[in-house]
C-alpha cells in the first residue's frame, strides 16, 4: 500500500473512530440523531473526497451526456463543501449531548485533532514529518486538553451556575496564557524572506 493510500485510509479510520467515540452511548435528545447523521455524512464524504482526489475534471464541459454531467456535479460538490468542518461541528455537538464526561471529551478532542491533521496530510500528499515544527505546540495543546478535562472533573464550589462559569473562565484564561507564551515555546521563523 502506498503512503498516500495509507494516509487516506488512516484519515477515514480516525474519522470513523471519532464518530463512534462521540456517539456512544446513543442519545435521542437535542437533535442528536441529526448530529450523528451529519457526522457520518461529513466523515464519509471527506473520505470519498480524498479517494477521488486524483480523478481529473475535463477541460471542455460542452455537450456532455446527462450521466457525465451528473458525475461532474457530484465531484464538484464533493470537492467544494467543507465536509471535515461539518463533521467536526457535529462531533462536538454529539459530545455535548451526553452527560459531563471530561476524560471522554479529552480523548475525543485528541482524536478530532488527529483526524484533521491526518486529513490534511492525505490531501496534500505530505509526509508526517511535515508536522514536526508543530510538535511542541501540539504537546502544549495536549497539556491544556488534559487540564481542561481536569477542570471539568473538579467539583463545583457551590451549587449555583456561577461556579461552573468560573471554571470555564479559568480554562479559557489558561488557553489565552498558553497563547501568550507560545512565541517562546515555538520560536518565530527567522529566515530571511
Amino acid at each position, binding site marked *: 500500500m502506498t503512503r498516500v493510500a495509507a494516509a487516506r485510509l488512516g484519515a477515514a479510520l480516525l474519522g470513523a473512530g471519532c464518530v463512534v467515540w462521540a456517539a456512544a452511548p446513543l442519545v435521542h435528545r437535542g437533535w442528536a440523531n441529526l448530529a450523528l447523521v451529519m457526522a457520518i455524512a461529513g466523515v464519509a464524504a471527506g473520505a470519498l473526497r480524498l479517494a477521488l482526489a486524483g480523478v481529473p475534471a475535463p477541460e471542455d464541459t460542452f455537450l456532455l451526456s446527462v450521466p457525465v454531467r451528473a458525475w461532474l456535479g457530484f465531484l464538484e460538490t464533493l470537492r467544494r463543501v467543507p465536509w471535515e468542518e461539518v463533521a467536526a461541528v457535529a462531533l462536538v455537538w454529539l459530545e455535548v449531548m451526553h452527560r459531563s464526561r471530561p476524560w471522554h471529551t479529552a480523548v475525543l478532542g485528541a482524536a478530532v485533532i488527529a483526524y484533521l491533521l491526518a486529513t490534511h496530510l492525505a490531501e496534500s500528499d505530505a509526509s508526517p514529518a511535515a508536522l514536526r515544527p508543530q510538535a511542541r505546540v501540539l504537546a502544549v495543546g495536549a497539556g491544556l486538553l488534559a487540564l481542561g478535562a481536569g477542570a471539568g472533573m473538579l467539583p463545583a464550589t457551590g451549587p449555583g451556575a456561577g461556579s461552573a462559569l468560573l471554571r470555564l473562565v479559568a480554562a*479559557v484564561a489558561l488557553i489565552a496564557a498558553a497563547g501568550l507564551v507560545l512565541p517562546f515555546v515555538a520560536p518565530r521563523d527567522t529566515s530571511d524572506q
Partner: protein
Amino acid sequence: MSGDDADRSSASGGSGPPGSGVSPGGTESPRASTVSLRWRSSRHARRLLTLGLAALFIATLARRPEFAGLAAPALLLLAAGRSQQRPSRVRLRARPSTRRAFEGELVAIDMTVEGQGECSVRWTWHPGREIEPEGAAAADGERARFTFSPQRWGRRQIGTLDVMLRDRWRLAEGHLTVNLPSLDCYPAPARQRTQVVLSRLQNRLGEHAARTFGEGIEFAGVREYVPGDRQRSINWPASTRRGRLQVNTFAAERSQDVVLLVDGTSDVGEPGSSALDLALRGAAAAARAYLDARDRVGVITYHWGSVGWLPPGLGGRQVYRIIDSMLASERGGEGPAGAVHGTSMRRLPRAALPPGALVVVFSPLLDQRFVETLRDMRERGFTILVVDVLNADPPVRPRSTDRMARRIWRMEQEAIRFSLRELGVPVVHWDGIVSLDLPLARYTRRPMIASGARR
C-alpha cells in the same frame, strides 16, 4: 520579464509568464521572473478554526470547561502559525530543454523557484492542447521537472502551472499561476532514403551520377587512351584484349535543384493524419533526403490567395528553414524569404523556382485552381512529381443519393489524376504510414526524364 512586467502580472491575479527566452542559436537562456503571491488560509487552518470556535461556543453555552480544553490545541496551532513569515514575491525560472521539437519527441521543462524561504512548494501542471504528459503532472520541492511530448505540429502552449506555497505550519497557502512558454512543434518527418533524380542535372558538383563523363567514382565505360590521361586510370585487361591502351571513364557527379510544393488549401481527414499533416511530414522527409544527397532544396507553400516561398539552399540547417517556412505560412505569416499575393506561380521570382528544378508536390489535389497551376507549370517545362496525400472520403449516409454523390466525387478525383498523368505528371499515392520510398520506387530506380525548362 522586467519588474514592470512582473508588477502587471501580479496585478492581474498573480499570473504571468516566466519568460524563458531562446537565443538565435537555439540554446536556452532561462530568465527569472519575479511574481507576486496571493496568500490565504489553508483548508487545514479553516478546519482548526471551526473546531476551536465550535468547542469554545459549546463550552460557553454549556459551561463545561472540558470543551474549552478541546478547543485549546486547535486555537494554539492557529495562534502559533500566525507568527510565520511568508514571502510576498518569489522568483520563478522556466527552462525548457528545447524550444523546437518534432512531433512525439520527448521534451522536458525544468522549473525552479527562489525566495520561498522555508515554505514547501507544490507544482501542478495543466498541459496545453496537443501536449501529452509523459510523467507526473504534479511535483513537490523547489525544483520540478515535467516531461511531455507534443502530439501535433504548430506553435503549442506547454500549458499553465499552478504553484502553491505552504508555510511551515501549513496554515496558509500562497497561490500563483504562470503560463509556460510556447514550443514550436515540427512535423515528424516521414521515412525517405532514396531520391528521385532528374536525367538532366545542373552543372554543379553533387552526388548524383550524371550522364556525362567526369571525375566521379561510378564506372561509365572504357575508351582509348589519349595523351594527357592519367596513367592510373588505364584498364590493363581491356588494353591487353584490344592491343591498345584503354582507360576507364567515370560518370560526372552533379546535384539538382529540388522545389517542394506544399498545397495548404485543403486540410481533410482526421486531425493528426490529415492531408496537411501528411503533406508537411512528407515535405520534411523529402527535404531531409535531398539535402543529405547535397541537393539544393527549397519550398513553396500554396494557400488561398498567396504563395510563400524559400529559395533552394544547401546544408543541414536548410531542413529547419524549410519547416519554419511551411509553419510560418500555415500561421498566415510570411516565410523566411517572402510571399506573393495571388495564386499564380508566374509571379514567383526565378530564385524561388529555378529552371530545370525537380518539383515534388504534396497535395490532396482537391483544389481545382491548384491543379490548374500544376498544369501551367508543366506546360512551362517543369518536371513535376505529385505525391497524393488524400486519405479521406466525404462522409456518407446510407442513402442512395449520398452513395451516388460519393461515386461521382471519386470519379472526379480519378479524372484529375488521369489528366495530370496524361500531361506527363506522375501521381503517386502515399498513405502516411509506409515509407515514402515505397510509392516513389518507380521513379527512384532510374533517372526521371527531365523536360526542358522554357521560362
